[in-house]
């Protein structure tokens, strides 16, 4: 059963217009900054957009298999499971009763519901903690109970709203592994809203980027994170994004970002831009090479593609080296190994030259 959504939703002054689809057993990652409409999208699918005195209008279509989830279908009849950042386990029920809640609510007899719950608790490795109350469980255990609870209700689709955000690094890694096993075992479409590119990398073959209520990019996770179209995704994917217009075939020209800096030009693999077409160049901070400077612009640096000159504005430690930003190009991060940093004389206010190999730059036509 696949999930196919093409909606327009209005909540207050905010409008979301989005079309997404997820196949059975597929995880679709939805990336986007706060206020981009991720929660509105999930709320519309789950059917609780207009709760608590909020006015919401949803039009368009939400299809789950051959069922249409229009306004007349209340949340309890949608068979859409929720797993949020906060586990919202029922504090007055044991782990087992939490998991059995769905089957019980759907009319399964008590003993049978308990058996189903026991099986799902076992699936998440918590069979021996069935009698614990949520308050007696760790954060990771609670999230696993919440996952078991969502699955025990036999949903036709699963919505995951930043489910790992509240967990520590190690616990969230375990939880991710659990969800990836689940993806392979349970054949339901899953929509995973997240801030963390790691979630998309590990779980989702496809990724959609939402911004201001619109889908601004969609495609394979590899493409979206490898060559983001937006500063937001570039930032969370940890890559540099430079936008510009082709000044001649294959050469992207980016305007000077500040009054004190020079414009830059970029060549790379990927799309071959025609003159006048706008596009973006993407490269990783680690691909940038740092040279002791300065070399005068007349000698070609700054004019040659993929090179620029900058004054070190600030430095941040990274594993094995430093990350630096320059006054002239504040949006471009440059990573350097400790050894290379010493060789190039990297320190605040040092004037340095930078270059990126053509093969490490991805150039793409803007949509």
């Amino acid at each position, binding site marked *: 059963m696949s999930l196919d959504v093409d909606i327009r939703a209005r909540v207050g002054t905010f409008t979301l217009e989005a079309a997404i689809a997820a196949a059975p057993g597929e995880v679709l990652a939805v990336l986007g900054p706060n206020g981009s409409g991720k929660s509105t999208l999930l709320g519309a699918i789950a059917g*609780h957009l207009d709760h608590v005195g909020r006015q919401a209008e949803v039009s368009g279509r939400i299809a789950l298999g051959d069922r249409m989830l229009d306004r007349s279908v209340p*949340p309890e009849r949608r068979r*859409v499971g929720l797993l949020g950042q906060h586990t919202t386990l029922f504090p007055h029920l044991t782990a087992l009763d939490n998991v059995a*809640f769905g089957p019980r609510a759907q009319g399964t007899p008590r003993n049978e519901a308990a058996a189903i719950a026991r099986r799902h608790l076992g699936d998440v490795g918590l069979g021996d903690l069935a009698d614990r109350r949520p308050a007696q469980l760790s954060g990771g255990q609670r999230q696993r109970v919440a996952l078991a609870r969502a699955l025990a209700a036999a949903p036709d689709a699963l919505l995951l709203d930043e489910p790992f955000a509240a967990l520590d690094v190690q616990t969230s890694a375990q939880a991710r592994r659990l969800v990836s096993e689940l993806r392979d075992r349970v054949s339901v479409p899953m929509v995973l809203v997240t801030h963390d590119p790691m979630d998309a990398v590990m779980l989702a073959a496809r990724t959609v980027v939402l911004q201001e209520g619109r889908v601004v990019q969609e495609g394979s996770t590899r493409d979206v994170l490898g060559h983001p179209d937006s500063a937001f995704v570039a930032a969370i994917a940890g890559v540099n994004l430079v936008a510009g217009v082709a000044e001649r075939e294959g050469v992207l020209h980016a305007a000077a970002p500040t009054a004190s800096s020079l414009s830059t030009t970029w060549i790379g693999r990927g799309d071959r831009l025609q003159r006048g077409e706008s596009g973006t160049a993407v490269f990783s901070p680690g691909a940038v090479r740092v040279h002791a400077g300065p070399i005068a612009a007349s000698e070609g640096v700054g004019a040659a593609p993929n090179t620029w000159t900058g004054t070190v504005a600030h430095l941040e430690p990274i594993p094995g080296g430093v990350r630096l930003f320059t006054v002239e190009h504040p949006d471009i991060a440059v990573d350097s190994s400790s050894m290379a940093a010493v060789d190039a004389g990297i320190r605040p206010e040092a004037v340095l030259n930078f270059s990126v190999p053509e093969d490490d730059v991805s150039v793409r036509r803007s949509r």
Partner: protein
Amino acid sequence: MSAAQTAAHPGAAGSVLGRIPSWLAVPAALGALVLVLPFIALLARLDWTGVPAAITSPAALQALTLSLSTASIATVVCVILGVPLALVIARSPQWLAAILRTLTTLPLVLPPLVGGIALLSLLGRGGIFGGALSAAGIQIPFTTVAVVIAQVFVALPFLVISAEGALRTAGTGHELVAASLGAGRFTVFRRVTLPLVAPGLVAGTVLCFARALGEFGATALFAGNAPGVTRTMPLAIYTAFNGAGVQEDTAIALSLLLIMVAVAVLLLMRGWRADAVR
């Protein structure tokens, strides 16, 4: 951890009061005295030899029985009406909730005497519904029913305010998840909403019962002071106190009885909350 942080924890080195300005202890102590001294004075003035006779007299037991039964019925009515009202307020849009909350709080801030007059204006002989009711052969004022109505009127706000606070604190997250698991509205209410707010609801119910038990002003005006019918403990105390001089000791003894009942109720609530779901 710095020394300042350590001191902030009660029981750590330094004062048990942590980092409260020490001179605040003076008004705090005065406040406590204002609350406690009158009771101490009452106990001091008590003629202990007369207490057993006073509180086991038929009149006292009659008043106590009437008080406990009317307050219990009033509390049940308050729960049945108040929980849904609290739910509506908690889930209303902000502007509507503000209006409903203000209306609910009104009986709380008005003198109960005003409530008694208001109830008479509604259900009394010359009241809005009074004519229709007496035509149907129903008389409400000066009956036990009137006692219960007066108690509901003054006690309901306590329950609604506590329950509404608990409901708003609990939020709707659990309810949404419960719905996503396939639970219909009533199942969500019964198996999720009510258990989640149970501690607040119990506290509200106890307060409500205590308020109903102590109700005097509205009862006196609306229900009168007929022994066995409308003379609850507070009215019995008032009657004894205003009686022919010698009865004052009886009034004090009856007050002691009422205090004991109230303390028992509060202790019962504490006991329940100690092992409540947190």
